[in-house]
């Protein structure tokens, strides 16, 4: 089912009209094609106007759009011979994080990503992309294996945050995230991360301490959800819009702060309007990043990754 965001309503109405006209044109000889063409141009213009000046809070909506492609969509589109692997070998299989081996443009790789699911059943199955310690421990296990076999690692980040559950706490959520960050930073193979939707706090950076961190144009990456921030600092959950502005969570903000390395453009009207084109752009960007890293030896990869993070935030200081 197509889903329209509040600020897309006028575009949605126009597109509804276009659909209607198309149905009409089946029976009649009238020159409807012209009319449809005109309306389409108008809809496109409207969409461009809206998306050219999305507010941070609107971007949060786009990043969470239910039709936005998720990790499994990118894996389907970009990875051949995908072989999912399961379990942390200690307690459970956490389907909030999916991962496995596969081929990316001919090269053998390990892929790990948060998966949110795309309907009620799969969302519950994947716990809305909120991982428990087992998910992070599975990620660590896959990274360690990739390291042993010299396979580059691609991570796809899309989570509201790590799961805040009682069991998750008592099985060491904090430790699992900390170790996952350490795993990323210890790799002697290329690690490329793409924030494809929501980069939610510690649960996101657990998979994203990478050589190259890319963000899809309308994705967001934040230390805390705007809602969480609003309820703590403004003591008013309704101020999420203000918090989204203040936190500087958009891809352009974060490129400016040099927290990320690049932005992947989305099709007009967001990734959810054209998953195929988005997947191709993501594929091209990841391929370029990997090409730049492939020639480097393990120590260099690790050292550069560390140095990149150590340098972060030091720019412009006396």
């Amino acid at each position, binding site marked *: 089912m197509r889903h329209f965001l509040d600020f897309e309503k006028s575009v949605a109405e126009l597109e509804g009209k276009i659909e209607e006209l198309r149905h009409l044109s089946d029976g009649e000889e009238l020159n409807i094609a012209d009319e449809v063409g005109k309306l389409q141009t108008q809809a496109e213009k409207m969409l461009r106007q809206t998306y050219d000046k999305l507010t941070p809070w609107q971007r949060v909506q786009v990043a969470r759009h239910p039709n936005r492609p998720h990790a499994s969509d990118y894996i389907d589109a970009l990875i051949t011979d995908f072989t999912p692997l399961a379990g942390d070998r200690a307690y459970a299989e956490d389907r909030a994080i999916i991962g496995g081996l596969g081929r990316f443009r001919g090269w053998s790789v390990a892929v790990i990503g948060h998966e949110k699911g795309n309907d009620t059943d799969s969302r519950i199955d994947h716990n809305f992309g909120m991982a428990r310690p087992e998910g992070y421990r599975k990620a660590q296990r896959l990274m360690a294996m990739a390291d042993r076999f010299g396979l580059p690692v691609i991570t796809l980040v899309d989570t509201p945050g790590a799961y805040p559950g009682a069991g998750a706490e008592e099985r060491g959520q904090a430790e699992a995230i900390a170790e996952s960050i350490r795993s990323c930073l210890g790799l002697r193979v290329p690690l490329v991360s793409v924030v494809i939707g929501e980069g939610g706090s510690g649960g996101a950076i657990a998979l994203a301490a990478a050589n190259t961190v890319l963000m899809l144009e309308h994705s967001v*990456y*934040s230390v805390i959800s705007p809602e969480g921030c609003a309820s703590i600092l403004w003591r008013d959950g309704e101020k999420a819009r*203000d918090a989204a502005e203040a936190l500087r969570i958009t891809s352009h903000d974060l490129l400016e702060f040099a927290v990320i390395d690049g932005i992947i453009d989305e099709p007009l009207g967001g990734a959810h309007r054209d998953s195929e084109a988005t997947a191709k752009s993501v594929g091209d960007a990841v391929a370029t990043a990997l090409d730049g890293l492939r020639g480097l030896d393990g120590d260099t990869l690790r050292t550069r990754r560390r140095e990149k993070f150590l340098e*972060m935030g030091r720019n412009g200081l006396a």
Partner: protein
Amino acid sequence: MSWLTNFVRPKIQALVGKKDVPENLWHRCPACDQMLFHRELSDNLHVCHHCSCHMRISAVTRLDMLFDDGKYERAKLPAVAADPLKFRDTKRYTERLRDAETRASEPEAIVIASGEMGGVPTVVAAFDFSFMGGSMGQAVGEGLVVAARLACDQGAALIAIPASGGARMQEGMLSLIQMPRTVIAVEQVREAGLPYIVILTDPTTGGVSASFAMLGDIQIAEPGAMIGFAGRRVIEDTIREELPDDFQQAERMLDHGLIDMVVPRGELRDTLIRVISLLRQKTPGELVPKIAETGTTLAIEVPPVDALPGDGAPVASSD
């Protein structure tokens, strides 16, 4: 009234001298509500005489009680952008920083110091919870990077003592990236073959617990310390259940196998000296500082040293 407070009292204070008139001689224990005399309380390392509640203490108080003879050298923290986001909620972040500085009498939420413990070189990174809840922004992250480098340069053990609600929201993603940055820092200590020990104090949560604070060679916690990733209220809202009182408490963490030991404040210094010595002075010939010779200035309500070993031993999980 105003004449009395504005004119007479300052005059008297100027005559008598302010230093002998502490503002508050009595403290109320947050756990058992008993009134505690300030001097007795500080003599007891800010642990309640009645219920053993370990109260939150400043970073400097930590340093004073841990280093040999309370002697140490504070490291200068490098400058960082004070307000990179120009953040403003109901108040400007710069204002909050100024208030915090006044309240905590520290320029930031972390203090780095080097000195000796039991005669062995040690670097301590201690958090000050009174500075914006010990939250970790660029300055705190940089502090840990500096502490790790200092430890490596001096061949010293690194002891991190977090007391923090987590990442500092007002610095946005620049605070979140302190998680990988601090992980790199402590990894450098590990690679240098030096001990990295964490003392989890109340509270240690969020981005701090999910980074350097869970990666120690040895994980120690103070009794009753709240340690976790997500906040209690967030968890209760998520699972729609009330959590047990001891949820996320150090003792429960010990039972779940997440930390090595729970050590009362009065025994921390001796425990640290013993552990560091075991990790570093490996042959019988090497000089091993005697625990009995240290710690006497600290131990107020501490059991005799020969009763120590059993206390800190890991306990097997019961469920």
